[in-house]
């Protein structure tokens, strides 16, 4: 495997302007396949979720899955696309053993959704609009496993196994228009775009959206042109880039590789590229030219899909709030700073905070508990924060106890541990563990006298007006009372005792 020359990313950016394009395949999570009644399930024994239709047996005919059409329309709407009133399927003819009929039933010149856009927010808040060319329905192919050769590739393999469980799984392919003007942010935009598509289909509930399972797969097209030139350069298509990080890396690598090719005066070859996660490089795949002839023609075994306007509007009414709009709304409602909100999103507790606020907590209290207490515990337990099992009502109850002065923050944290350990409600745990803030001044004054006697030099400093030194005395009192003292009251009493005006 030869290694291609690359330019540094910065150098590439100095000379060239990248143009991107994406084809994102989304596997729908319908119960059955696109054109057959076989189950659409991931991970089962090979060739068990198949029937005669999926195997392309003689005489079989396809029957379109209505739920898949609904999901496709929902995706189209979420991508701000127009929905075709009537559209057809076509046959894409090519011989390959993962395709049981040796043609793929897809949509060609009549996609179900077209002319949309998606606004992508980059990390610094810049919004970049990506135009969507089309979103069309098609069926997935089976899965080939090449054995006996190197690197699992068909070249050099002794034999191949094919699993048709995936054959016929419904897919929606989302194709962007050429994305111009991203400049040096192209890799970041690439990642953000695929992340946004993934978030949308997950939010719609139409796909499991797990990239590691191939539910969302990305082909990334990259070309470069010298600054100021309008005509696009020749593109490469890096296939099956199947993680968000990989999308970013693959686009970056291809920009660097193209730049080196162009700098050498050679033409870029129009081809597919394979992405290698281990080396973070691509290698040459199949030469792809306009000579590829799939002999498309309208699928005669299916009738046109007619999407009445009423149906489309019914589906539109079921759409959940778009993720980006929801985030914007929540941040405004909660009054979090950009940084605070980003941390919440990154920690994955946005839904939980929303529920906690709904249960009666203020936005800042909800954030304090989730970000301050729960996220860390989840990290230690290696689970998502939402999976720890903290009920919003628990947080509200704990917080009320603190505000009422029944317990202090330190105790509240201890009570939370008790709740997580399954010891009962916060009230029960406070009771059981005998936790209560000591508010009788008698025992406190004794403890203060002891603390002042133990640290006479500190007492002098306080008398001299160095009020920040009071912490040492407070600490001593808290220690003596095993943390049950009300720190505020302790401070007041110390100052009183020493005759200092705060």
């Amino acid at each position, binding site marked *: 495997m030869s290694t291609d020359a690359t330019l540094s990313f910065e150098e590439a950016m100095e000379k060239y302007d990248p143009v991107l394009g994406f084809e994102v395949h989304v596997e729908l999570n319908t119960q059955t396949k696109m054109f057959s009644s076989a189950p659409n399930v991931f991970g089962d024994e090979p060739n068990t979720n198949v029937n005669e239709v999926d195997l392309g047996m003689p*005489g079989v*005919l396809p029957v379109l899955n209505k739920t898949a059409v609904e999901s496709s329309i929902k995706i189209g709407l979420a991508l701000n696309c127009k929905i075709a009133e009537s559209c057809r399927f076509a*046959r894409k003819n090519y011989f390959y053993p993962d395709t049981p009929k*040796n043609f793929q039933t897809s949509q060609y010149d009549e996609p179900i959704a077209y002319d949309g856009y998606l606004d992508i927010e980059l990390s610094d808040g810049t919004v970049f609009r990506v135009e969507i060319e089309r979103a069309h329905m098609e069926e997935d192919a089976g899965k080939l496993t090449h054995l006996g050769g190197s690197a699992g590739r068909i070249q050099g393999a002794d034999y191949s196994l094919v699993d048709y469980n995936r054959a016929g799984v419904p897919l929606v392919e989302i194709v962007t228009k050429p994305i111009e003007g991203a400049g040096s942010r192209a890799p970041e935009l690439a990642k953000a775009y695929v992340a946004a598509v993934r978030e949308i289909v997950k939010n719609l509930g139409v796909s499991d959206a797990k990239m590691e399972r191939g539910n969302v797969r990305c082909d990334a097209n990259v070309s470069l042109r010298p600054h100021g030139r309008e005509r696009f350069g020749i593109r490469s298509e890096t296939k099956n880039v199947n993680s968000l990080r990989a999308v970013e890396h693959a686009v970056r690598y291809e920009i660097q590789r193209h730049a080196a090719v162009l700098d050498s005066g050679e033409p870029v070859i129009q081809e597919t590229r394979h992405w290698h996660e281990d080396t973070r490089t691509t290698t040459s795949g199949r030469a792809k030219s306009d000579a590829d002839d799939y002999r498309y023609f309208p699928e005669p075994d299916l009738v046109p899909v007619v999407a009445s306007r009423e149906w489309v509007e019914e589906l539109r009414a079921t759409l959940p709030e778009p993720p980006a709009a929801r985030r914007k709304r929540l941040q405004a409602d909660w009054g979090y700073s950009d940084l605070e909100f980003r941390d919440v999103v990154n920690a994955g507790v946005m839904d939980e905070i929303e529920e906690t606020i709904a249960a009666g907590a203020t936005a800042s209290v909800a954030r304090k508990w989730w970000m301050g207490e729960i996220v860390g515990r989840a990290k230690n337990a290696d689970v998502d924060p939402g999976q720890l099992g903290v009920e919003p009502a628990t947080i509200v109850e704990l917080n009320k106890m603190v505000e009422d002065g029944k317990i202090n923050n330190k105790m509240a944290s201890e009570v939370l541990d008790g709740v997580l350990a399954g010891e009962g409600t916060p009230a029960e745990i406070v009771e059981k563990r005998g936790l209560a803030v000591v508010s009788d001044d008698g025992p406190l004054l004794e403890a203060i006298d002891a603390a002042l006697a133990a640290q006479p030099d500190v007492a002098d400093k306080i008398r001299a007006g160095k009020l920040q030194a009071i912490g040492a005395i407070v600490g001593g009192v808290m220690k003596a009372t095993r943390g049950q003292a009300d720190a505020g009251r302790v401070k007041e009493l110390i100052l009183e005792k020493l005759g200092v005006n705060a």
Partner: protein
Amino acid sequence: MTDTNSNQLIRLSAAQLAEKLAAREITSVEVVQAHLDRIAAVDGGDRGVHAFLHVNAEEALAVAAEVDAIRAAGGAAAAELHELAGVPIAVKDLIVTVGQPTTAGSKILEGWHSPYDATVVQRLRAAKMPILGKTNLDEFAMGSSTEHSAYGPTRNPWDLDRIPGGSGGGSAAAVAAFEAPLALGTDTGGSIRQPGAVTGTVGVKPTYGSVSRYGAIAMASSLDQIGPVSRTVLDSALLHQVIGGHDPFDSTSLPDPLGDLVAAARLGNVDGMKIGIVKELHGEGYQAGVENRFNEALELLKQAGAEIVEVSCPNFQYALGAYYLIMPSEASSNLAKFDGVRYGLRVLPEEPPLTIERVMGATRAAGFGDEVKRRIILGTYALSAGYYDAYYGSAQKVRTLIQRDFEAAFAKADVLISPTAPTTAFKLGEKLNDPLAMYLNDVATIPANMAGVPGLSLPGGLADEDGLPVGIQLLAPAREDARLYRVGAVLESLLEAKWGGPLLDRAPELAASPVVEPVETLVDAQEAK
């Protein structure tokens, strides 16, 4: 059961058999056995009809015995039996069946057993009609003579040196030779009607979508249609009623059932109906004897009170050309699945390397016959980038024009009429090396497939010059299949009155094979397990 009785049983129509079975005058086992005996007597050997590729004796007899037992027991189960329960049928070997091989007449599927039944086969089973076996055809239904079968040609019972038509020559010959009272065919460009015409039998191509295609191995999806083959118009109506109706497994299946076809066949009146002669579908290019019988049929219909009008369908002249673009285009894609990967024949290339592409190539080179290859190449070419608009695209436009011609014609006439085929049966081998001459056989039948309208062929008599059967074709608007049965039944009764009996009574006696071969020898060798 005496030979005489057996000989009488096989000459009964399906409707007559059904009546006698219901009255318990005969048993289904007797009927099935009589047909199996007939198959054994006339189908095998060097000069046999060779209508069957596989005989399903055991299962057919078992179904017959089941029906007999239900009838004998009486009660609700007997009352619920379908009208045709116990009446045997043959199935074109393009239609998949569990428990019997399905070859499509091709080496590439030799020995293949379908894991599922075609919808029409399920319906035959639900009606408890014993399936006698699978009938011969041109490979993948591509041909008009059955000579393109990889398993040898079928012979025409009227003259064993002549073709029985195609692609469904096996089904037509089986019915004509009294080996089966009924059969299923498939019709893409005339494969039911043209064999019907040249064998003196009845064949119907139903309205596209009125009979499920699920389980019919596709040649050209937008043209293919399964339909009945029989000796009488009523029998076809009875069978059509069994196999028709919506099927959720076929997206092109019509949602609503056609009208009562059997009642239409029994109506017996054409008074006041307008019957249109299609100017472009007779005359030049048609054999004189064919024209004569056609004109006689018109005269009889006129006498029965029908009004004969002339209609013109100017775009029919382009139908054959457009058909030979659309059909191979779809076929090239439909037949791509036969690649040796999942089922059927697999041939390894003689020289290394053993790549998947070369295995597919070697399998298809060895497994497909010349006519299939010819059409795959034609279709692949017609769909290629740069040629698509000129070929497939133009052909689709012609198709629209043909549909408009039909609309205009049906505005003037209730039913259209023409000869089914331009000639009577030609000799085996006569046109085998002249594909264009072979294709011309379907010139009158193709327009119906292009427009999706139904067509029926019935015997019109024998041509004066060769004494061979001539077919009369009736065409009706989509979903108006009932009109075909109504007019067809009237014409049939008028013609039979004229002839003094069914046309097939005049067919030569088929000599029993010198040695009556046991049925087992007909069973495909691949079947022996």
